[in-house]
């Protein structure tokens, strides 16, 4: 190693030397031992560094410092815990409120049937049959997964049978027309397997309003509710024609 290189590397020759590898360190130290210029310079540098370094590190650390530090850190830890506990309670309350809100909305939307009669008519998927009797309607509905769903109505007035979308669920919708009397009725068939029938409003007319000049009645049967929107005074014309006693034999 020459003097120029040795002077460049001299700065790296420190007590905790981690920047020169073993070979470089050995070569430098060999040069410093042998060189009459670099050797004394290096020793002088080291002595100066030792003197200043010793003074630099000569700082009295207060006796109680460790205890004060740990006490303060414990105090801060307590503050931290209290803050997180407070935030935790608030976050939990907010999450619970949000969950209740979501569950409430879900329940309201999922369970409570709405009555958008005209809208559903336009959305309905026509699987049409006409003009059937109760057995045929029952069979058709059974084919769609609705067991014993056809009520004993007067199907002579049935114009169409749809599958309509009610709150995201496919459910039967029947359109009855009494052309002679210019009356019409829409009957939604709501099974209790898909809808909470207890949630149906007790007074459906109050909810339905008269935007479409329909009145509403709810006909509850086993496992089904039939929500009937009708024009005219009442929906009695949907009921099957009862043969009067004595008329069956043609009298």
């Amino acid at each position, binding site marked *: 190693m020459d003097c120029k290189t040795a002077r460049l590397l001299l700065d790296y020759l420190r007590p905790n030397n981690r920047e020169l590898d073993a070979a470089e360190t050995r070569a430098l130290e060999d040069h410093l031992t042998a060189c009459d210029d670099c050797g004394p310079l290096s020793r002088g540098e080291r002595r100066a560094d030792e003197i200043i370094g010793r003074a630099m590190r000569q700082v009295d650390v207060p006796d109680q*410092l460790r205890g004060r530090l740990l006490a303060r850190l414990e105090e801060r830890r307590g503050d931290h815990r209290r803050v997180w506990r407070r935030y935790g309670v608030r976050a939990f309350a907010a999450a619970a409120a949000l969950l209740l809100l979501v569950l409430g909305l879900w329940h309201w939307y999922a369970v409570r049937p709405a009555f958008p009669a005209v809208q559903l008519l336009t959305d309905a998927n026509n699987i049409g049959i006409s003009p059937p009797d109760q057995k045929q309607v029952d069979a058709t509905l059974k084919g769609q997964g609705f067991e014993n769903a056809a009520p004993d109505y007067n199907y002579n007035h049935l114009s169409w049978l749809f599958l309509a979308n009610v709150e995201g669920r496919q459910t039967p919708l029947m359109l009855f027309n009494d052309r002679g009397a210019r009356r019409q009725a829409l009957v939604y068939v709501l099974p209790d397997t898909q809808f909470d029938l207890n949630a149906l409003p007790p007074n459906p007319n109050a909810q339905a309003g008269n935007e479409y000049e329909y009145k509403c009645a709810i006909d509850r049967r086993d496992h089904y509710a039939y929500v009937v929107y009708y024009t005219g005074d009442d929906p009695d014309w949907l009921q099957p024609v009862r043969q009067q006693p004595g008329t069956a034999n043609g009298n």
Partner: protein
Amino acid sequence: MGTPGSQRTVQRLVDDNYGALYRYAYRLSGSSADAEDLTQEAFCKAQSNYGQLRDPNRARPWLFSILRNAYLHRVRADRQAACVSLDGVGELPEPLPEPLPDVDSEQLQQALNELTEVYRTPLILYYFDDFSYRDIAEQMDLPMGTVMSRLARAKSWLRGRLLQPAAAANGGAERRATDGL
């Protein structure tokens, strides 16, 4: 915000480092009260953000770095403090007198107080012997060459100031009232 350290972890951090950290803080600030405050602040931040320490073996540089940032934050409003300029100070070592005089700790502190932080910090870290040039460069977020250049000038000035008092009195280090090193 990082993950807080456990009580045992933080206690160990304190036991292993509080002396060195306090000495560093004292040399940076020149005041025992400020040194204790800075040490306290550094450990509090370390406790709160312990999750940011990726390598536990690098806890000391991490703590020193936190402390330096805390110090810089405090002195930011005090940048008009009188400091010496090292513009005229060379990097090559001047010949030293024989025998070398002893250096008093307070005398050293007075000299350090005259230096701006950009020279004082590498000087302190260098003489603490715990840090390589690379460590110092990382602490100060500077290229290693810049750190070595500043160190050479600061060492040269400090030696002149402490080991050759007569030379320092007449030397190239002129006092000025800004931090513009």
